[in-house]
């Protein structure tokens, strides 16, 4: 309990986009900074709406930002798909 299987590259994408802060991203997606942090750490799976908003902020398709590893492919790293 506590870890979702959905992986994401949000932290890397933030740094690639002029070192965007979690607060900046949160304001653009209309959630709290703590929610962005929870998503990055895998503690929370966002709704489709928030996932699409995050993808749109980075100008990437949804699958480039979020992924669902096959069983057996899950690792211990935060950004398993990046």
């Amino acid at each position, binding site marked *: *309990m*506590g*870890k*979702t299987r959905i992986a994401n590259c949000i932290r890397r994408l933030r740094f690639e986009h002029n070192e965007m802060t979690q607060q900046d991203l949160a304001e653009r997606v*209309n*959630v*709290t*900074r*703590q*929610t962005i942090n*929870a998503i990055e*750490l*895998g*503690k*929370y799976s*966002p*709704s489709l709406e*928030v996932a699409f908003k995050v993808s749109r902020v980075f100008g990437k398709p949804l699958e480039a930002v979020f992924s669902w590893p096959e069983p057996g492919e899950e690792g211990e790293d935060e950004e398993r798909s990046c």
Partner: protein
Amino acid sequence: MSFREKRAWVTLITLIFVLTLFWLHIPPTRMLAPPPDVWVLHVLMLMIATFVAIQIIVGIVMRIRSPLDARTPKDERERLIELKSRAIAWYVFVILSLGGIFVTLHAGANEVGLGFVVLFSFVVAEIANYAMRIYYYRRGF
């Protein structure tokens, strides 16, 4: 720590503090068949007033210190945490109140004692509510 997580901590600690104070004045065994003394109700009213006063004062202080966070509406994760926690608290309340009524009736409690059992169940359910909120804020789901 978000504003709402801090509020959850404050409410949880206040509930435990007030409940402990109440038990120190009126032990649980005495609650089953309390004497019809007015001071029992006075203690109860005092505990409720203490809880409300602490919540108001701490709430005002927290809003003054973090006005932006306080005004930010709940996002989807906070709403979900609240819903899941309330669902668990509901089960705690039902089990404790029904079980407590069953046990205390067999223990020979009077109607005031039964009232205390239901009130106690409600307070414990609220403790469970805020404890689960903190757990979900910390550990996720």
